């Protein structure tokens, strides 16, 4: 099996190298066949690994020693358990779909081969991240996916907005990584190892270790958990490090689906779930996660209400859904967070690729106000996106219903500080989510076609390479929920890969409630949904969207006008981007200019260095005047000297 583990990511790397460096030799067809076959291979191997893990074979071992320093061995190695195997399947499946889809989406692009090289490289990096058995390799994968994200957001590198967005994404992520790296340094400091198994085994013994901070004595574990979470906030775009994700939509749509919805942005969620043995020991960290996740979930969803760019609606939806996953982590419902990560990967990739399909048809127009009535023209895109929207809104029995409902129930069961706030936030979020999802559907596919002549021309359903991935993603968007619901809820799906303390076990409490009478777990859950608010809130959201966009289209404008200040606030994204731009970007440049001009050139170089040169220069100019060249001047000086010497001799 070790060979299979190794082969899975390496196939993708190989595909990337061939498409990237030999792209001009293998040609466009060669590049896409090569990478698709490699990713297909990786997917098949991932399924094999998944089956193997299901059969009880867990692997934890080092591949090679990266470095040995200060008595600590830094290894590259794999931990293959339920958690990583699940992630491998999700990542390779979505990646495969996106690879196929790209043939259609990018077929006009001159840098076709490069794009395939990048997405294959991304798949490699993401696999290395999820398969890692230690913090070092985790960080490797973490930064490598960030690099590919940077390269792909700026894929159209002549576009000013794209190259601004990719730099912004990288730097905001680096702020997160700053915390993450310190967290890793803290782990090494506290445990003397970066190996998961070693660290997790020692974690309960490290609870007594206290750190001196400006806020008094705090458990080292709390400090480490919070620092690591800062990394997750960057990668998984949690408030206030969320600002890069909407801008990342400047990149081509396939990568929005693969990287900025389904996989990379969930790396933070995965990481916290992976670190559950640490997070369980710090309620402070869990509370912080709850609060930040809940804030992201609701406030980002609200921005989604006012977006007119089809991709941006889906982007804000992604932010909000990442918030939901984070909330689940905070409520110690790690398995539910990963469950939602999986279902979300399918339906959100579907929604992005569907949006991309619309964008191709509309000749790269993304403004929903210019769309409408596409239902008849693009039936496959319409139906699959409708399924995706139902899943996102959490309507039973679609996949999102199970995972999202469980998150809400788990938060409800949590009694940590911030849980009540989180509960109401995610509850309200359900209504908002359902509303913006169907707002998107109705504005795009229903009503009158508002496109201009140019766009009308050749408006048709996308080719098979685009629609087949949509169909293939729609299937798990329907069934993944009830398929995995039972094993996840019963608590044995993730086996030993996730640790939950008894007093935090909200999932068990939820399962308790749902077990009851004879309808089976799934039947009970659906029945239970009819008596709890989330379901009705979702229906209300859809209903309100129907009213606003199908029945009485003048309503949205009226509402926007009535609540003008709120609309403006949402349209300006709470002014967070502007404030960050002013303080961090402009502020740093001003600071740099000031330091450069006044300290470096002024004080050090101008004052001390050239100043001392000037002093010496001045001194020598003055001394030079004594060298007049007239003998009688020198004679006179000699006489004075002589007199002084004699005088001194006499007196002394």
């Amino acid at each position: 099996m070790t060979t299979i583990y190794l082969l899975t990511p390496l196939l993708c790397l190989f595909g990337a190298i061939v498409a990237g460096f030999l792209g001009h030799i293998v040609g466009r067809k060669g590049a896409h066949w090569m990478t698709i076959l490699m990713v297909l291979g990786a997917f098949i191997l991932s399924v094999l690994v998944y089956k193997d893990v299901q059969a009880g074979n867990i692997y934890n071992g080092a591949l090679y020693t990266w470095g040995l320093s200060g008595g600590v061995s830094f290894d590259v190695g794999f931990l293959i358990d339920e958690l990583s195997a699940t992630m491998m399947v999700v990542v390779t499946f979505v990646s495969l779909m996106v690879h196929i889809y790209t043939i259609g989406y990018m077929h006009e692009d001159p840098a076709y081969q490069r794009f395939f090289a990048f997405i294959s490289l991304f798949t490699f990096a993401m696999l290395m991240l999820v398969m890692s058995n230690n913090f070092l390799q985790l960080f490797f994968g973490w930064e490598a996916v960030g690099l590919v994200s940077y390269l792909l957001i700026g894929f159209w590198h002549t576009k000013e907005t794209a190259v601004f967005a990719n730099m912004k994404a990288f730097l905001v992520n680096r702020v997160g990584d700053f915390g993450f790296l310190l967290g890793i340094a803290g782990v090494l400091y506290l445990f003397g190892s970066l190996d998961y198994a070693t660290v997790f085994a020692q974690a309960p013994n490290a609870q007594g270790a206290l750190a001196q901070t400006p806020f008094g004595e705090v458990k080292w574990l709390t400090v480490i958990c919070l620092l690591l979470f800062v990394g997750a906030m960057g990668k998984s775009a949690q408030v206030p490090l969320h600002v890069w994700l909407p801008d990342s939509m400047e990149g081509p749509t396939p990568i929005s689906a693969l990287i900025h919805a389904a996989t990379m942005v969930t790396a933070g969620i995965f990481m916290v779930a992976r670190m559950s043995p640490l997070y369980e020991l710090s309620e402070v960290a869990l509370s912080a996660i709850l609060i930040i996740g809940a804030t992201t979930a609701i406030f980002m969803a609200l921005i989604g209400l006012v977006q007119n760019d089809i991709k941006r609606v889906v982007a804000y939806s992604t932010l909000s859904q990442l918030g939901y996953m984070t909330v689940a982590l905070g409520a110690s419902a790690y398995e539910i967070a990963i469950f939602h990560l999986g279902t979300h990967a399918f339906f959100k990739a579907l929604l992005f690729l569907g949006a991309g399909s619309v964008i191709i048809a509309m000749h790269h127009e993304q403004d929903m106000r210019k769309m409408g009535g596409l239902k008849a023209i693009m039936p496959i895109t319409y139906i699959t996106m409708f399924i995706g929207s139902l899943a996102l809104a959490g309507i039973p029995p679609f996949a999102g219903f199970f995972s999202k409902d469980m998150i809400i129930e788990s938060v409800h069961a949590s009694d940590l500080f911030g849980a009540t706030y989180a509960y109401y936030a995610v509850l309200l979020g359900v209504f908002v989510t359902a509303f913006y999802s169907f707002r998107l559907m109705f504005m795009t596919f229903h009503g009158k076609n508002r496109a201009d002549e140019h766009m009308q021309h050749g408006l048709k359903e996308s080719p098979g390479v685009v629609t087949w991935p949509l169909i293939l993603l729609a299937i798990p968007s329907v069934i993944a929920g009830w398929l995995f619901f039972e094993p996840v809820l019963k608590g044995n799906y993730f086996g030993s890969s996730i640790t939950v303390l008894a007093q935090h076990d909200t999932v068990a409490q939820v399962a308790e409630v749902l077990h009851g009478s004879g309808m089976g777990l799934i039947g009970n859950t659906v029945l239970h949904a009819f008596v709890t608010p989330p379901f009705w809130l979702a229906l209300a959201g859809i209903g309100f969207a129907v009213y606003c966009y199908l029945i009485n289209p003048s309503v949205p404008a009226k509402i926007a006008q009535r609540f003008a200040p709120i609309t403006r606030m949402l349209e300006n994204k709470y002014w967070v981007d502007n404030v960050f731009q002013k303080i961090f970007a402009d502020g740093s440049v001003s600071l740099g200019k000031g330091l450069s001009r006044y300290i470096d050139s002024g004080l050090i170089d101008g004052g001390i260095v050239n100043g001392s040169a000037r002093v010496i220069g001045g001194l020598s100019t003055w001394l030079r005047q004594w060298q007049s060249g007239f003998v009688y001047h020198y004679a006179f000086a000699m006489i004075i000297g002589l007199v002084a010497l004699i005088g001194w001799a006499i007196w002394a």
Partner: protein
Amino acid sequence: MSAYLLSILIWLPIIGGAGILLFSKQGQEGAARTASLMLSLVMFVLSLRLWTGFDKQTAAMQFEEKAQWIKAFNINYHLGVDGISMPLIVLTTLLTVIVVIAGWEVIKTRVAQYFAAFLMMEGVMIGVFAAQDAMLFYLFWEVMLIPMFLIIGIWGGPNRIYATIKFFLYTLLGSLLMLVALLYLYNKSGGSFAISDYHALAMPMGVQKWIFLAFFMAFAVKVPMVPVHTWLPDAHVEAPTGGSVILAAIMLKMGGYGFLRFNLPITPDASHALAGYVIALSLIAVIYIAYVALVQGDMKKLIAYSSISHMGFVTLGFFVFNQTALEGAMVQMISHGFISGAMFLVVGVLYDRLHSRDIATYGGVATVMPKFAFFAVLFAMANAGLPGTSGFVGEFLVILGAFQFNAWVATLAALTLVLGAAYTLWMVKRVMFGPIKNEDVKTLVDLSSHEMLFMSILAVFTIAVGVWPNPLLDVMRTTLENLLSHVAVSKL
């Protein structure tokens, strides 16, 4: 041959470089180039014998040579290498090959002299790393200035006279203080110039502090540390590309090397007592210089400041006194050799074409030079410390080690993750990406085969050390462990 390997490595390029001057006449440029390349390749292969024949288990000097030189003052011709100097010598020979390839097409005037200067400098620099006698060390240390002075002064830019004089005076001032310290130690040790004798010399704290400061001035200028760094941006801006490469990749390392060879082992108590100040200056270099780098409009200046900021990690790693940070600092020195060299070559490629180092001149270069863009982005990412490149290894280990020492020091140092990425990527964005605004940029041609060659060589090393730094850590480990245990013992 092994017995005289170090002597060969020092004298072959010096004598060979002088020989290349024979091809000074017009029409002999080709011969001068070929001979220089052959010589530099031979040097590199010979230096690999140092690596393959190196015993990793001992901290003692290896490949030792000792002969009496000036009997009256007990000065010896004494050479040797350990885990600190051996990798630096291999780095020197590698970068010399790179510089010869890089100068192949670009240098059109005084070709033989140009290559001769670099080859002679190579020998002298190896001499600095190999010298075990303080006077021999001092001699090589000072002589090294001459070829660099000439390289900047002859093949340099318009403001080269100011830059060379500044460079010369700065370094001379520092090294004169070192000479005073060496003379004091000579007397104190009963007439010995053997560096290893100084390591064993007991001294009271007051004396140690003075000795420490004297050495510190010499090496801090060379590294350079804030606030004695302002010669470096000027020197880089005026130096030809090859000069910048050697300056950044090798000469700055002499400062770091000096700290390890002189400050830490000779004055361990003063090193501990004054470590706080050195750490503070290192952190200032990491953070303050990063801000200064951010706003530079001249690419070479920006990279020069970036060098200072990265060298801050080296001095930081030395003075937190643990194995992880110390090894990280050494890796950082080697890695910075590849990356800063590569970054200056990247700028050189553009400068050779449009004769401008201004960021504002460019924009959209990636559109016309895709191969170049690949390397530029790769080295920029390495400069920003991306994992998988050598730039990550050193910073990572220094931050881990600094965290053991003090979490706040590590926190401040880790700011480089954001700041280093900010100044590097902002430059990349403005130069490489975006629409083409300048018509001249449209005329740019992509990398020549020579340029591909040297970029590829450095890329391979950058990635190899990033993916598997262990072989490099292996050769340094015993020496550095020995150094740390030596520094831990008081000499009061």
